Structures are given as C-alpha cells and as structure tokens.
C-alpha cells in the first residue's frame, strides 16, 4: 500500500552544465567586440607627458594618430636619434602629413568627416618646434580637431 522511498541516501543532483557554453559564448562575444588589434608597429619611442585634466577620446574610429619621438633603438643606426614623425607604418616628413590627412579623411563616411580627430602622441622630450610644424600643417589641411594624448597622473597638490 504505502510506497516507501529509500530515504537518507539522497545524492545531490548534478548541476546541469548545459548552459555553460552559452555563458562562455556570451563572454566571448563581448571580448571579440571590444578587442581592437593594434594596427601599427611603433617605430618611435613615446613616453607620454602626464596631465591631470584629461578627457577621454570619444570616437576611436574617427581618430588618426601621429606619433612623434626618437626612433626605436633598432632603427637608430639608420635614422639617428632626432625626433621623427611616424604616420601609419613609416617615418614621414612634415610635408607628407597633408597626404596622410587626406587619405584618412577619405576613409571616413561623409557625415563623420567633420568629426575627424588627429591625436598627437608625442614623447615628452620632443621640442615644440616639430609639434608647431605639425600643427601648422594640420591647420593648412583644415584638420582642426586635435588632441594631445597624455597619460593620467595624480595632481601634484
């Protein structure tokens, strides 16, 4: 009549791992989307100057970088230690900035061209002469939105 269950020896039910792949995939997609691969090899050494009033660079896809600094040690035999400008993957002169800006602007969508930002990543030990030249050249190609990239530092006082 009465049915009896064997009590006492109840084993804990195994946790279903069927949803584990889903969770992992979710994480995977998140990281896949947020990943940005570095497109350029650094040819100049850049130690960014520190600043406290930094603002985040908003649209990374609309930003082009200009690197300024002393060539990396393996290139110094060939290029010396004077500050150089790096655009994309090679050393460039001031006059080539114009083509670079034109090419970068061309690659953007029509509506975004106004928003194009040039981020200047310059070493803290370069002289302003070269930076001023870059700025003048940028003004000439009317790429007026710029940003001096800096690293965050604590306020001194």
């Amino acid at each position, binding site marked *: 009549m009465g049915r009896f269950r064997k009590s006492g020896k109840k084993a804990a039910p195994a946790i279903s791992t069927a949803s584990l792949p889903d969770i992992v995939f979710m994480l995977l997609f998140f990281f896949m989307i947020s990943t940005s691969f570095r497109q350029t090899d650094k040819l100049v050494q850049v130690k960014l100057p520190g600043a406290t009033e930094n603002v985040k660079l908003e649209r990374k896809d609309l930003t082009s970088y200009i690197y*300024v600094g002393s060539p990396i040690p393996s290139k110094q035999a060939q290029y010396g230690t004077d500050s150089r400008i790096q655009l994309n993957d090679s050393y460039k002169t001031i006059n080539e900035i114009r083509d670079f800006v034109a090419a970068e602007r061309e690659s953007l969508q029509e509506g975004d061209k106004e928003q194009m930002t040039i981020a200047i990543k310059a070493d803290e030990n370069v002289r302003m002469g070269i930076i001023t030249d870059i700025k003048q050249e940028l003004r000439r190609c009317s790429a007026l939105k710029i940003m*001096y990239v800096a690293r965050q530092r604590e306020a001194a006082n």
Partner: protein
Amino acid sequence: MARKTPDINASSQADIAFLLLVFFLITTTMDVDKGIPRKLPPMPEDQQQQEDIKINRRNIVVVKINSQDRIMVGSTPVDVSQIKDMIVEFLTNPNDDPTKPEKEVKNIQGLGSYPVSKGVVSLQNDKGTLYNTYIQVQNEIVRAINEIRDQFSTQRYGKKYAQLDDAQQKIVKEAIPQNISEAEPKDVKGKK
C-alpha cells in the same frame, strides 16, 4: 528508412569556446586614450592679410614659455604650480579690476543673463620648448577653467561640472568659455 544521424557530442563545445575566450581576453586592450583636446584656429587665406582681431589689452593674458622652459604669465616669471591660480584670478576678476578682463552680460538660454568674462589666455612657446612643459602649462590652464566651472556649477546646481547633464554642461560652457589662443608660431626670446 533513413538512418537517424547520431547526436554529435557537444561537451567539448565549452572547451573550444573557453579557448577562444582566453585568446580574446589576453589580446584585448581596453585602454582608452586620454588627453587634452584642442581646436586649432583655421588657417588664414594666403592673400588675405590676417587681420588681428582687436582684443582689448585688458582682456588678454599672455603665457609665454621660452626655450629654457621658463614660464611667464603677463610680465611675471612664475612656476608651473602658480599658473592655475593666476588664470583663475584673471578670468573671474572678482573685484572688477580695470586691468583684468571685462565682462559682457549675455543672455544664456536656460540661465538668464550672466556676465561672461571676455578674457583670453594666449599661449606662446618657443621652438626649443619641451613638449612636456607645454602640456603641463596647457594642463594648468584647463585646470583653472575647470575650477571656475566647478565653482559655478556647485553654486548654481549644487553639483560638480562633471556630474551635470549635457544640457547643464552646455550652459556652463557658455557662461565660462574656454578661450585659449595658441599664437602664430614665433620665437619667444628668453629674457637675458
């Protein structure tokens, strides 16, 4: 009758996904570039002689950096740490000093009329100035303006400038503009 295809064992799917996950975890760099944004003035046309915008002398403070990285605000040599307070003092002009910038009462939407300072900070540097010094000075000037904005927004909204919403930030920006002019390049001679 078609033979039933056997179920594919999916237990290794998680492993594969993990492998990919680890790969992306390692390669991800989520550092966001930060820095000081600036808007360059447009280049004057070649033919057109650049006409100097007439700015009243009292409305302009010149910050000069020479090739030895010495800094001058107006006609006093200063240290980097002093710049901020001098700029704040200059731009706010609390005592309506006739040698400090004028204020122009402007009607700002959402705020009403507010005396907006006409002060301009002009930054001049030498070819030999270190970039680091230049950025430090820029940073101090921005810090001065941020301080004034913070002060204003705490008074008006009870919050720091950074915590305001976009509309309020726009109002504050209009009330306290960031007028920094980077002069045409010329060599600033160090005082002998």
